[in-house]
């Protein structure tokens, strides 16, 4: 439904998008994640025909966004980041105008506007001036605008930004309902809501795609879980038991013993685990066999937030440290 191949977008000296490629199949709900300034909105604007690409290919519903811009725009319902409105029109007038502009036939217009208002949950403010409704409602007016021509593809650029938790919940609910009928590209930097709503995420950072896949698979496959165990035994014994377990990253083991002088110390061990591994059951058995009383055993799974940090700012920091180290090594002798 959407195909982007080696997309570049330059604004003067700044390369905002550097070789972004991805595909979205019909019916998918894809989260487009990235920190502020990552290139999400620029990529979206290229897809909607608002900005031209500097190079690369972008296709929507099989149409090239540059050469068949009008056709592409017929297939898209777009909610921009900042919902622009005409404050002097009533909500229903604004939606009728947008429906007409998008080519909804006159005989179907009233029904289309009512359907869009019902889906976005704004029927109660239909007669209000757009300039007089709250920010949350305005966001939903923008969503109704994206829906009014019933396009097969919805591109929602940070649809929950600036909303309170209840409003965010409502928008997420609407997006979930829409996923049955539309292909959705949902841009956000709020990870929780992407995890709630999307079946797949594309993470973009500094204009490049850093990850693309199912949220749980990305997190499980890309970040280490953490094992934490507290038991009444000498620290070295605990270390010996844990070191031999499958999936434990040996050089991350950190163990400390409290109150050892009294002869009944409690050792606390923390370590990282290889992605997708879970040695907790085996560890429990081994501790039982060694007759070690266990006070706590926990495998802490990484969150999407940690994964996101690891491949964006975390990756930047590692890169900077590596560069600094290289500079130190290659410095004046």
């Amino acid at each position, binding site marked *: 439904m959407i195909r982007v191949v080696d997309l570049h977008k330059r604004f003067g000296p700044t390369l905002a998008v550097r070789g972004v490629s991805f595909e979205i199949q019909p019916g998918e709900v894809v989260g487009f994640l990235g920190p502020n300034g990552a290139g999400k909105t620029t990529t979206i604007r290229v897809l*909607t025909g608002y900005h031209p690409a500097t190079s690369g290919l972008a296709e929507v519903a099989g149409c090239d966004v540059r050469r068949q811009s009008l056709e592409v725009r017929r297939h898209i319902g777009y909610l921009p980041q900042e919902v*622009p409105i005409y404050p002097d029109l009533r909500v229903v007038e604004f939606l009728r105008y947008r429906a007409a502009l998008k080519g909804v036939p006159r005989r179907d217009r009233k029904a289309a506007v009512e359907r869009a208002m019902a889906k976005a949950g704004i029927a109660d403010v239909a007669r209000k001036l757009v300039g007089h409704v709250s920010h949350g409602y305005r966001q939903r007016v923008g969503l109704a605008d994206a829906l009014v021509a019933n396009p097969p593809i919805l591109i929602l650029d940070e649809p929950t930004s600036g909303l309170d938790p209840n409003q965010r919940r409502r928008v997420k609910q609407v997006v979930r309902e829409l996923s049955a009928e539309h292909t959705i590209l949902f841009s956000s930097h709020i990870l929780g809501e992407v995890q709630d709503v999307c079946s797949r995420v594309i993470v973009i950072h500094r204009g490049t795609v850093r990850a693309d896949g199912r949220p749980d698979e990305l997190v499980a496959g890309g970040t280490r879980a953490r094992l934490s165990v507290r038991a009444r035994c000498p620290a070295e014994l605990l270390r010996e038991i844990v070191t031999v377990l499958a999936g434990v990253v040996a050089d991350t083991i950190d163990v400390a013993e409290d109150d050892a002088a009294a002869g009944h110390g409690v050792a606390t061990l923390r370590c990282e685990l290889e992605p997708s591994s879970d040695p907790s059951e085996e560890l429990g058995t081994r501790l039982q066999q060694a007759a070690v009383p266990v006070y706590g055993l926990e495998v802490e799974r990484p969150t999407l937030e940690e994964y996101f940090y690891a491949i964006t700012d975390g990756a930047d920091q590692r890169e900077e440290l590596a560069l600094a180290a290289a500079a130190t090594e290659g410095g004046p002798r």
Partner: protein
Amino acid sequence: MNGALVTLKKELLSYAVSPVSWIIAVLFYFVRGFELSDLALVFAVYRADPDMFPAATYGNFSTNVMVMLVPGILTMRCFAEERRTGSIETLMTAPVTDFAVVFGKWLAAALFYAILWLPSVLVLHVLEYPAYFDVDIAFGPVFSAYLGMFLLAGFLLAFGCFASSLTDNTMLAAILTILFDGVLMKAPSWLATRIGDWGDGWYARELLAKIDVMGNFSTWFARGLIDTSQVAFFLGGIAFFLFLTWISLTSRRLA
């Protein structure tokens, strides 16, 4: 054309609900009412030719304001406001051609301008009553004068749309248009009197005469004469500035 028609309707609605439009209309008819009653009095007392009455209204303050200031005020929001509020993004990503948007906005401004002007014809009709002149005013020259005025307004409104497409500052767009109006009204005749011998070569004097809008008004349209070269000048100017506006908008997709 559907896009242009939809844009036209929406823009007309916006003009209708804008307080600025109503302030212009009220002030125009308020000032014009005083001016016309004074003119009618002068014409009645001195028994001047009432058929010259419409032409005499050209020098009025209200006419000058309508020609010099109103096109800039009406068009200043066309694109500058859309840029300022960000609604240009949803407009340009809707399945409608850029030219349809440009044409729809210009046509709405031109129609609204015409709606502001047209009731002034009724005022002339009122002056035919016995209480005033008690004669039939020749409506042929009135028609040509109004045609000329609308062509000029269309030209200035097209420039106003272009100026508005260049900036997100509505005041700047209005000032640009008003400056352009001023230059177009005053510069040709002013330059013609100052170019001296240089004007004899390169058809400079002829060129200035062609673009002397106010001079041509009194020579042609005010006398009930429709000069096709003047009509072509205004229509060409409208097409030229609408084209520039379209280029200004569409360059976003090409850059």
